[in-house]
């Protein structure tokens, strides 16, 4: 017996439109059950998550604006290098003085 052909034939036989009939006044029955349950409320964490997510583009725009408004001609990379070097060297100087 060709099992592949049999499987295909049976799967073809299984295809049928869904039976979507609804029992009379079924929605009333569910509504009666719902009256015993606590009312749903908006999840507070979800509310915060949504608010924070909505705030992202505004924050990005503010950051960009602040960057563009800060002194455009001033190059701070050199002074930062020097400051970093001074800070690192200061700690070694202090260490040497103590010993």
């Amino acid at each position, binding site marked *: 017996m060709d099992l592949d052909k*049999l*499987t295909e*034939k049976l799967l073809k036989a299984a295809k049928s439109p869904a039976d979507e009939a*609804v029992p009379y006044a079924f929605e009333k*029955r569910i509504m009666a059950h719902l009256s015993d349950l606590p*009312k*749903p*409320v908006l999840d507070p964490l979800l509310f915060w998550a949504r608010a924070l997510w909505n705030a992202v583009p505004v924050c990005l725009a503010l950051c960009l604006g602040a960057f563009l408004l800060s002194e455009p001609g001033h190059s701070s990379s050199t002074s930062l290098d020097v400051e970093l070097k001074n800070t690192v060297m200061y700690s070694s100087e202090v260490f040497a003085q103590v010993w």
Partner: protein
Amino acid sequence: MDNHESKLIAAILRGEVEAFEVLIERYQPRIFGNARRYARRTDEVEDIVQEVFIKAYQKLGTFRGEAPFEHWLMRLTTRTCYDFLRRHQKNREHPLAELSEDENDWLERFAASPESAHDEEDAARQLVSKIIESLNAEDRMVITMQEIEEKSVKEIAQLTGWSESKVKVRAFRARNQMRKILARIAKEKFL
């Protein structure tokens, strides 16, 4: 999501419970159709549908509104049907224990000449229902969605929450399992 639906959901979350009835009326035919694919008895089908709507009501506060409400509800329906199948896996009597006379006759005709056994016959439908019912919960879900409802791998992955590769592997295994069951029936009948 359509505007009317989002207004309804907002109203329910404000405490206007009666607005939920409109959502039930709109979606209950689809959910009944889905539930009947997995449960045969009327009381079991009604229990599944009721459970879906009660869960939807209780979890409505977590609905993000980014995707349509219908997709959210259908995922909930799929999950509920899957839980139903898993719960009823153990205490279900083996449906393949006995084939009816018509089913036996259909198989004999297929064995003699595959063309003489037509797929639109009731016996073929009953036989394939029995075979699908004997599969485990995951195999049954994937075979039903892919072969009967003709859903794509992507759609099944979205509904079940499984990865697309898991769906593909599951579908392959489910078809293999069906073939094994048919081989066993053929062996018992014709050897």
